């Protein structure tokens, strides 16, 4: 049966810029604290107070997968992720070049590419993000939540208009 799959949803407006997600990601995957190893990175515009976490979108038509010359990147249907077979990977970094999000990284210590694997279904960044900037939810629910937010805004606007 085809799995609809959960996705990592980022609500950038909620991000406090603390970068705890980067730290726990690196510790979970590599046993080391080092943002250079993190699969998720918080981009900052400090003078505007704007912080935006960026990670792999597990694209349906994934450029990294399409471009890999040795077929090291494939789709994991169970988790609905795009994953790398490190044994096949030749470290050419073509995937790094084509990823529109910069979510494919190259580790200069291990000389390997790496990306988000959703921690095999229990993403630690989500677990540690107390403010709910990161969520791991069913792909189909994402738009419903957005519908609801938009509807709430409309309702408040309506109430205000009635009060006038």
């Amino acid at each position, binding site marked *: 049966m085809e799995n609809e799959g959960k996705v990592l949803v980022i609500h950038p*407006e909620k991000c406090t810029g*603390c970068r*705890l997600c980067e730290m726990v990601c690196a510790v*979970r995957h590599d046993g080391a*604290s*080092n943002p250079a190893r993190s699969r998720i990175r918080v981009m900052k515009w*400090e*003078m505007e*107070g704007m912080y935006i976490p960026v990670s792999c979108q597990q694209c349906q038509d994934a450029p990294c997968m399409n471009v890999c010359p040795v077929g090291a990147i494939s789709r994991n249907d169970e988790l609905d992720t795009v994953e790398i077979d490190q044994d096949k990977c030749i470290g050419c970094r073509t995937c790094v070049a084509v990823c529109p999000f910069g979510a494919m990284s190259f580790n200069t210590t291990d000389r390997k590419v790496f990306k988000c694997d959703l921690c095999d279904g229990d993403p630690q960044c989500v677990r*540690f993000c107390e403010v709910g900037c990161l969520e791991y939810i069913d792909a189909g629910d994402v738009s419903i939540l957005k519908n609801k937010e938009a509807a709430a805004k409309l309702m408040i606007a309506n109430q205000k208009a009635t009060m006038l």
Partner: protein
Amino acid sequence: MALKRKIAYINLSTGEIDIKPIPVDIRKKFIGGRGLDAYLLYNHSKKGCDPLGPDNPLIVSGGFLTATCASATARTHIMAKSPLTGLLGSANMGGFFAPEMAWAGFHHLVIKGKAKNPVYIYLHNGEIEIRDAKNIWGKTTTDSQWAIRDELNDQEVKSMVCGPAGENLVRIANVMTGIKNAGGRSGMGCVMGSKNLKAVAARGTMDINIAYPMDALEYNKRFIDQITSAKVNKTQGTLGTPFIWGATNSWGGIRTRNFQYNQCEYADDIEPERIDEICEETMGPYHMSGCFGCQVHCRAQYKIPSGPYKGVYDEGPEYTSQGAFGGEPDCKSAETILVGNHLVDQYGIDNLEAGSLISWAMELYEEGIITNKDTDGLALEFGNDEALLEMVKRIAFREGKVGNALADGGIAASKIFGKNSFDFLIQVKGMSNLHSDERATPALALNIATASRGSDHLRSRPAIDLYHLPVDVLRKIYSNPIPYDGPLSSEHTEYIGKAWQVFWQENCYMAVDCLGICKYHTTFLGATLPNFEDWTKVLYYNTGLEYTPEEIWDVAERCNMLERLFNLREGLTRDDLEKGDMLNHRYFDEPCKRGAPDVIGKFIDKKKFKKMIDEFYEHKGLDKDGVPKPETLKNLGLANEPSKMI
């Protein structure tokens, strides 16, 4: 791993750089951060050294747990002999600098000498470079940081910088990182300026291997749950530190018009809710930001809502800015607080000192000790918002007689202003008091009187003393890890047992400062937050080193004693008003005029205060003059200081 982080000795006069490991036995004895800095300062400075001379070592560090998988370990500590007090100088800030320094390979820097021309130090993956700062000198704190990034062509570089105030050798100049994080106290930015050191920049991609990664991760989760479930931190994460203002002002603990009153009346525009409203209006519903790895996120983002600075972005304003630009000068406008907060951030001055000293000058103006002639016609009156903000600028750039005098700190300025100006100066050891009024809270009064870096609320304040916790709850907290069966009292106006609470907090805060953890993550504002027992596990999972709670306590006691030894060497005496463990006479002579029924009319009873100091000294193993007894030094392993082990 954290144990691989190095110490670097950098001589700016000669350009020599010496990088060394930090031995495990040093970690066992001092842990790191502020504690190890105290050891380094005591060992690398000579008695009576000129705080602005090349021999004063500027020590910069991250805590032992900084950048490990432990919660809220973002603190950077800076230490040197203070140009403001002539005693211990020490400042601590959050942000992202210390972790970056750790990923760049370093935990401690000892910076000596003086560069011929403005320079900055660049730490990068185990390497250190001293670089020309001529294009950065003169810039504000934020512009300096962005200029360094542009020059190094790396937007991930984190820097700690001094602002124009530090360059101008203003003795209340701070060290800044990011937009708001400030190592404010005791003039550490001035020491940077004196060395022609504009900044220390760091960028690192080196691993900090975690000893037991999965255990560290799980324990961190537990830790965070404990911290974020505390009501005080939830409030903190919504309103930031201004939330303290509401309660404190309503019972009468905010000094107003310098020290004339203990409550700021009719101040709706500077209440935390109003400031939060402005943050929401200008930055939206999610306007809180956090330091590295911290889930308390107490720093609000705002844009100045009106006036000449309308639309300018900054962060904070914290509780201190409310007092410095609100209560103390009796200015009651949110805009003034937000602008004042922005100016000190940009110029690089301690907001607490600025607000406190200007309010003092306002009282002197009222008393006729300072006149229009001294102020170049500026009406330095309480409640004059424009004069307040103008004075911030004059201090930063040493303009005019009053601005230039205040730039040297309160005690030096009192000698210029003359008459009885010193009597009005609310300070301990040459450092201004926070805007809190401790006349109704003896425990807090003892804390500011005995704090090692001069009047200070972050060295030993038993803030939970205000919560009227039952004695058995207090005993549970204060008997761990060292048993205490002496008296305790739930009453905040009492003197009983307070000496022990202050002693306990002094060790608790030293321990977090050694670890690099923020004080909002321990027994400071919340009674249920982690301390000694919990830290043993965090240390073990992250570094693999085993400590018992008692050992951490011992380290804290040892490091506090080192700070005391430094102060004694530089002239600390018990009752000295300029360099002692003594409060301004107004604490004893002027009763509180406002506040709650149990606060109004209160003042510090001098006899009981002296008895409290006696008890405090006894807990610390000091004699009646505040000098450590020989057996105390022996027990703490400090009999042979300076021992020059590192």
